[in-house]
């Protein structure tokens, strides 16, 4: 099965987008999930609900609002424009931001659960062994939340691969920059080129399946213990 050069590019952009936004999201969601798992603040429920919110809007509509926000006339985009960074619409960076917003709940939730399940006992033990809080986090909480990170990464990555609505609205289907595989498939379908659409979809599926299987198999191999040890 041969892919057109355009489709190859789209696939490559997709993989970059998924990797970058998943990576950044894991970084950014970690403190949020940690805070959610440990705070006793009564308003926590509202924050938890807010995190889930990106799921509630149809992706194109979310994309539309993000476009309004990140575009040159938007609050964020306008600000970035003024400080010389440039607004985020129709750029790869914009897509990264959009994907991150949209995948936020898939990352925060598993991490939150994983941090909550770790329990305080091992952290207390670490504190008595002279580990300060960041140290405890890095050496105890993080490794014990491995399964949560795996889930978060897999869901965010896969979700970004298949994302369409936010991306087409915010990214604008520009070849080589914001045209990802899902949009390329859409283009083929719109152009009634079903064969090309099927081919690209199949490749996406096969690639993802191999990657995910590999990840899960490795995880099994590396699996050490349950949390209760």
């Amino acid at each position, binding site marked *: 099965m041969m892919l057109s050069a355009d489709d190859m590019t789209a696939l490559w952009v997709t993989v970059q987008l998924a990797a970058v936004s998943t990576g950044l999201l894991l970084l950014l969601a970690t403190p949020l999930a940690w805070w959610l798992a440990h705070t006793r603040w009564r308003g926590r429920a509202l924050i938890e609900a807010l995190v889930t919110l990106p799921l509630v809007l149809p992706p194109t509509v979310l994309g539309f609002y993000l476009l309004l926000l990140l575009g040159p006339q938007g609050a964020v985009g306008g600000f970035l424009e003024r400080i010389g960074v440039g607004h985020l619409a129709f750029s790869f960076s914009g897509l990264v931001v959009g994907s991150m917003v949209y995948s936020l709940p898939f990352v925060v939730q598993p991490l939150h659960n994983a941090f909550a399940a770790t329990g305080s006992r091992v952290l207390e033990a670490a504190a008595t062994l002279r580990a300060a809080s960041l140290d405890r986090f890095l050496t105890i909480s993080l490794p014990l939340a491995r399964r949560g990170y795996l889930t978060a990464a897999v869901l965010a990555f896969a979700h970004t691969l298949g994302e369409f609505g936010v991306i*087409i609205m915010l990214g*604008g289907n*520009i*070849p080589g920059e914001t045209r990802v595989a899902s949009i390329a498939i859409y283009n083929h*379908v*719109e*152009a009634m*080129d079903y064969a090309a659409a099927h081919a690209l979809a199949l490749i996406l599926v096969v690639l993802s399946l191999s990657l995910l299987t590999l990840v899960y198999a490795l995880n099994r191999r590396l699996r050490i213990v349950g949390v209760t040890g």
Partner: protein
Amino acid sequence: ADIRVAVAANFSATLHALAVPYKAATGYQLIVSPGATGALYSQIVNGAPFDVFLAADKLRPQKLEEQGLAVVGSVFVYALGVPVLWSPVAGRVDDQGAVLTQGQFRHLAIAEPRTAPYGAAAQEILQALGLWDTLERQGQLVRGSSVAQTHSQIASGAAELGFVALSQVRTGQGISGSYWLPDPALYAPLAQAAVLLRRASANSQARHFLHWLQHDPQAQRIIEAAGYRRA
């Protein structure tokens, strides 16, 4: 030497067909970004880096012109869409459209009338035939968000027939399945308009492309062969 074209999804295949001879003739490359007309409009309003907009309607190009986002006077109709009642199954649709009144189907697919011009045309046709209310009431009308989706719904066999664009079903070998071309009197013309966007006002290549699209005979031939009518 690149011209960035935002194009209504239904015309994207035709535009690709146009890009080849255009590049051969001028050396200019078209960068094609297909999308729903409404979405493309929103993107242009929010600073999308397109030079030329080929919409599926006349409304959005005109609005852009009014808003000062497009070059005044550059709007022109580059093609007229032709709706067709189509089924991939031979003999299901008769050439008078009587199948609509005989009701031998469970689902009739159309594009969303509010957002897709072909959907609006389909609604007008059905209303002219006095069938709209009944079909609507009986939940037989299936709406795709774009005419491409409508085509997919019919092609998959899930909806027995539906109104799609002639450009979608006409191939070099003619039209497979069965179809009915409604009388153009039954619906308002599906004018698809193009416009030069403001950021390209000084872009001579973009102007050249629009001129070529409007006046070049080869371009006209390709558009007609794809299933559109001339403006």
